[in-house]
């Protein structure tokens, strides 16, 4: 799936929620994708052993084709530098500081060289309720959750069932975004966005996906269809043709977007559901686009 714009994913969340762990997985992964990451602190990212060449202009190139960048001259400059890289970057991830407003950063995804791909918040299942009750940052953490499209409740493995329940209730009180049980869906979104042609539904441990060729569809119809996605659907991305132009169709969590985009892509849409096998309701919904 390509266009002249770089998809941008914003990763937010308060301290200790696992942002760095997620980013290390992307930067260490043998995924063959050229991903750029703007990080807050190089010191937290395990890149030393992967370092291909020393930093130039704040950008460090890694052996697997990814680049890592600290916004030394501000975010605007870093974005300009990343957009200018050749070969072109396929996906950009921005890590927001612990108190940063992810939605404000996400607005850079609405500038001419980028396409906002989603705002994902990571929340620590053990400490989240404590941070939400914190007199200093409670409101900040609540706003971060409210501004996110998807929320990953991390560290479930060390949390008690009681802690997980409390954390899930806290998230639901702050945000209408779907809660994911692990970062696997996020990694799948970032690292394997491109299915070769039409792909049958695939099953994973915690999620399932399908890629199909959409029929010709008008902009309004595409919007209504996206908005009607079943609750299990956490992600839709792809291109569809109106007959006259190409549309970029995107849904992350509960937020949908349909915009005209220049590009030579062929029509193809991938849907991810946060359940191990694709439910019949999702297949029916996909079929409804053909009606």
């Amino acid at each position: 799936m390509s266009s002249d714009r770089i998809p941008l994913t914003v990763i937010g969340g308060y301290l200790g929620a696992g942002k760095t762990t997620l980013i290390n997985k992307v930067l260490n992964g043998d995924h063959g994708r050229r991903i750029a990451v703007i990080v807050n602190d190089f010191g937290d990212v395990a890149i030393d052993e992967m370092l291909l060449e020393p930093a130039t202009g704040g950008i460090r190139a890694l052996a697997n084709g990814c680049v890592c960048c600290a916004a030394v001259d501000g975010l605007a400059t870093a974005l300009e530098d990343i957009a200018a890289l050749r070969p072109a970057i396929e996906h950009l991830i921005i890590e927001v500081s612990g108190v940063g407003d992810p939605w404000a950063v996400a607005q850079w995804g609405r500038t001419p060289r980028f396409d906002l791909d989603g705002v994902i918040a990571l929340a620590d299942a053990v400490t989240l309720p404590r941070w939400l009750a914190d007199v200093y940052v409670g409101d900040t953490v609540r706003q971060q959750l409210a501004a996110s499209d998807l929320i990953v409740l991390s560290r479930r493995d060390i949390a008690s069932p009681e802690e997980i329940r409390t954390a899930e209730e806290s998230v639901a009180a702050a945000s209408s975004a779907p809660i994911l049980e692990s970062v696997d869906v996020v990694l799948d979104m970032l690292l394997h966005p491109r299915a070769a042609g039409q792909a049958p539904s695939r099953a994973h441990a915690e999620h399932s996906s399908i890629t199909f060729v959409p029929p010709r569809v008008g902009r309004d119809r595409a919007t209504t269809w996206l908005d009607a996605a079943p609750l299990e659907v956490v992600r839709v991305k792809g291109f569809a043709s109106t007959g006259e132009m190409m549309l970029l169709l995107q849904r992350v969590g509960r937020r949908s977007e349909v915009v005209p985009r220049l590009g030579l892509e062929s029509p193809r849409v991938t849907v991810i559901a946060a359940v191990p096998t694709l439910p019949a309701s999702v297949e029916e919904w996909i079929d409804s686009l053909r009606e």
Partner: protein
Amino acid sequence: MSTIFLARSLHAIDAAASGDAVAVDEGRITAVGSLAELRSALPNATVDDRYAEATLLPGFVEAHSHSMAGGMWRHLYVGFFDNRDPAGRLWLGCKTLDAVLDRLREAEAALDDPNETLRAWGLDPIYFSGDRLVAEHLDRVSSTRPIFVIHASLHLATVNTALMEREHINADSLADGVPKDGAGHPIGELQEPAAMSLAGEGFTGMFRALMAPEGITDYGKLARNAGVTTVVDLGSGPIASDSIATMWQQVVNDPAFPARVSVFHNPGQGGPASLDEVAEMVVRRRGESTDKLRFGGVKFVLDGSIQGYTARVTEPYINGKENGLWLVPPAQLEDWIRPVLDAGLLLHVHCNGDQAADVLIDAFAKVTAGSPPADHRTTVQHSQLTRRDQYERMAELGMCANLFSNHFWYWGDQHVDLTVGPERAARMNSAATVLELGIPLSIHCDASVTPLGSLHVAWCAANRQTVSGRVLGPDERLDVAQAMHAITMGAAYQLRMDDEVGSISPGKRADFVALDADPFVVGAEGLRDINVLSTMLDGVEQSVG
């Protein structure tokens, strides 16, 4: 060979000496006293009477302003209050939206290249009781020339239809910061940097001018015109890259540059992300300091502004907004300030709201564990809503306060009516409490947020008067001596430069300001009407533009 400068009156500020004459040799002060005393002590000295009709004070010291205040003047001023440009020209405030449009029209007509973007700054709709500047207004100035007007907060810009057409800002522009009308068309407002960047060269051209060498040169002129001989650039940008540090050196070390500058590093604006690396870098830069250019300070910003409702407050704003924004995670602050203090660097932290001050005071107390480093001079910057109980803790910890007293004039009425209400507005910038508790005090302008003017901020701290005539918290007013101390020795102390500047004392640099009236004679009410005649830097006159 000494020169004795004779003044009509002279105030040494922090020195025991009194008199009407000061002796200068090789740019240093050698003696202060009466003309007769100095003549008999220095029989070979020349007497210079150019200040015989003037009042001499130590050159003013401004410990919280930003160099972008100079570069701003590369663009058209459309602010509400009267303001003077680097050349000394007075620009009357635009009191209505129509006045803003008239000024834009005049400037538009004077541009030769029809494609050149007209850029303006300083607009603050908070004074226009609800009236909002939109593209439709600017289209009345020109339907063909792109226009970009940045608001005083720097968080918002208004552009015209010609600019939107050039940059393809239209119904499909999705950014949240691009408000649309009922028909889905952008109204011309661009909110926050991502949306403002849609203005392309209109936006980048504005900020490029702020960081250019010419802008810093103009900053020096603004300082000189205000009687300031030592000015800070309080963390406007990173100094990590050699190209930026070299630019500062070339501009400020030039003998023609009329002020000393202390340049702070703000890690929030770029540079190394790890605070250990920041400390190491600033220590290295400190070694590159000269007589006129100083490195060695680090500035953090904890919260936003009160008039922008982004300061972190303990009680909600009176318009119902719960609280403001953090720029540093409170739980990380200890790890941020430790390397700075361990390296012996000067630490200044922006805390507008009292909740931000709480976080800083707690972090400082923990990091220093009951025994703060000797002579650390850690300064709470703005400190506008800091409470008495917080000042008591600051006094114990040896922290300093630099207050934003100009707020009484520029936003005092808005603070009573719109932001924090009468009770908190009355204890804002409580300078008398600071002094009563023995905390080192300074007061500042935060240019370009308000115009650089030491006598104006002294007037504000001594009168606490709003535009509508209210006096907020009269018990917190400073007397003239206290106000003059705050804009000289008080600020020099917080910049660790009080051994060199800030008073007319033997051994210090011959940095003076010559005034057309004596602050101690005109009294608190008249401070802002005093004119600066010239300044002297190392004994060399800097004539006011």
